[in-house]
């Protein structure tokens, strides 16, 4: 037993030495973990700015002179006439082409208490037009209501009569859950990091070693192929796990730089949550490395291994998004690797009670699949086909 452990230890130590000494490949591998938190901060800053800011909007008025009060009210809300547009933004607002037509008989109808029809013209399918239109809509309604209330007040009517039923909304989502975007992106990043970080190490220690003619020598030694596979698996998944830990710790630091309270949201990664996520993603790191080794060992060359294994990355990038889009999630999705992890991570960020049964189930399925892949690969390395591919 002791001899087996010593042998495995020697194999693992060698894999670690090779993995950590290839500095450039290691940096490349951990790039995702470094860049993702930065990306998160930048994206959330942009989103907050868009949500909080009410940038000036320029509208092409016709008949503005008919309704000076309305124009003033709109100007208070940062909605200006196209005539005042600064030179730099002219082209943009020309293209959005939002036009309001104020009728000639505005003042007359106003005094007579008749309905005045303002016409708002714009391309409503244009995404850039939507927020200005929404704001114009609100501003006009506000203006209209304030006049209406005044009219009733002068007639001695309580304006509260206008609102017999009032809906009071109570948001039961925990405050943490409101900032869905960070959590969704972080969830996807976590899975992608677990999947991609060990990639270059897995390819290098399998297809790379074969191409450097060191695999044959190793296969001739008195060591079982299972130990060889295990050593390579341990080394690649360690790197993947380092990626996950880095990503989580850097994210918890970097979200501090974003003022989420501006949009009424909070997001903090508590230590207990971070530790749970790390442990929860550990089997995932092993599973990912096992997949990569399994594929890379069967390719004919290093180049082929790179492109084939590269395709594997598409899976973790794709699945979380698909799962989060699905409304009716079938039960079995809870059990599968990647989709199961993705849903639980989503739940963790939403602040929903963790479904421990699903955690255990998806972890067990992931571990079982990893073991199956390792055993199959160990068996494959004994086959003549692999040996023949050596030369």
């Amino acid at each position, binding site marked *: 037993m002791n001899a087996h452990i010593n042998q495995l230890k020697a194999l693992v130590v*060698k894999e670690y030495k*090779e993995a950590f000494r290839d500095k450039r490949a290691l940096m490349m591998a951990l790039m995702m973990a470094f860049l993702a938190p930065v990306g998160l901060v930048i994206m959330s800053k942009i989103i907050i700015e868009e949500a909080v800011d009410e940038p000036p909007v320029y509208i092409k008025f016709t008949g503005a002179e008919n309704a000076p009060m309305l124009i003033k009210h709109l100007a208070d809300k940062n909605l200006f006439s196209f005539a005042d547009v600064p030179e730099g933004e002219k082209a943009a607002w020309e293209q959005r082409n939002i036009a309001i037509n104020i009728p000639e008989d505005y003042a007359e109808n106003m005094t007579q208490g008749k309905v005045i029809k303002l016409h708002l013209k714009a391309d409503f399918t244009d995404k850039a037009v939507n927020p200005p239109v929404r704001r114009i809509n609100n501003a006009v309604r506000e203006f209209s209501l304030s006049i209406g209330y005044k009219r009733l007040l002068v007639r001695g009517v309580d304006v509260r009569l206008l609102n017999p039923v009032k809906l009071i909304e109570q948001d039961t989502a925990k405050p943490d859950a409101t900032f869905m975007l960070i959590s969704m992106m972080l969830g996807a990043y976590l899975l992608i990091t677990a999947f991609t970080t060990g990639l270059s190490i897995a390819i290098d220690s399998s297809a790379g070693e074969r191409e450097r003619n*060191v695999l044959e*020598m190793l*296969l*001739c*030694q*008195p060591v079982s192929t299972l130990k060889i596979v295990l050593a390579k698996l341990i080394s690649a998944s360690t790197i993947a796990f380092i990626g996950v830990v880095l990503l989580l710790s850097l994210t918890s630091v970097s979200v501090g730089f974003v003022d989420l309270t501006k949009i009424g949201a909070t997001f903090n990664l508590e230590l207990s949550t971070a530790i749970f996520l790390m442990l929860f993603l550990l089997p995932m790191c092993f599973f990912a490395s096992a997949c990569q080794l399994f594929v890379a060992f069967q390719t004919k060359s290093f180049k082929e291994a790179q492109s084939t294994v590269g395709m594997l990355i598409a899976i973790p990038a794709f699945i979380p998004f698909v799962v989060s889009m699905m409304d009716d999630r079938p039960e079995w999705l809870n059990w599968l690797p990647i989709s199961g992890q993705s849903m639980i991570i989503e739940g963790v960020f939403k602040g929903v009670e963790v479904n421990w049964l699903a955690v255990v189930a998806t972890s067990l399925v992931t571990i079982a699949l990893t073991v199956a892949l390792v055993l199959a690969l160990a068996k494959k390395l004994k086959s003549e086909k692999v040996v023949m591919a050596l030369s």
Partner: protein
Amino acid sequence: MIEVNNLHKSFIDKKDKKQNIKALDGLSFTAKDGEITGILGPNGAGKTTCLRTLYGLLSADQGYATIDGISVTENPLAARAKLGIFPDKFGLYERLTAYEQIDYFASIHGMTGKAKKQAIEQVIIDLELSDLAHRKTVGFSQGQRMKVTLAQSLVHQPQNFVLDEPTRGLDVMSTRILRNHLAKFKAKGHCILFSSHVMQEVAALCDRVIIVAKGKIAAQGTPQELCDLAGEKNLEEAFVKLIGSDEGVAA
């Protein structure tokens, strides 16, 4: 002692699936302890296939191979533990130092602690590797690479030692070191199986020579016996005659 008995091995032709390529066709020989046995054969004679079967990488269709009486098919790990291998194609772990490589293979062979350290230091001194030992092997010359590979296959003092063309790329000094080393091993009663294309070397080193052609033995004996058998003065002429590609004198 290495024993190969009636080995048959054929591969499926990739282009024509029905056509089999016979790599080994009833090859048998014995390499005894305390002897250097040379294995000679033209390219494609089945030498590498034979050696790979011996390492337990390929399984023979028929026949068996044993190392110190252990069958390589039934107990490959135990058989390999008795074997030191210098392969035909070899590479180094370029991110490790020479010392670390030798250490790696020593550990795989189950060596630990002080005994391992002593063995590594001994083999480094024996092969005159001291200057290189703590350098990373990237950028080593062909000769230096061969020495490191030799060191890692010799560090556990294997009872049986298989070398596939060990002297290609070595300079005269290194070749002499290797030769002396092999002679020492032989004197200590180890079994050495040695494949080469350099006839002078085989003639100078080997106690017995096995000539392989088309997957079977074409002739065997001491270098002198082979020369006598072919009626030639030097081994090269005898070899050409015996493999039958020259005048069809094959045994």
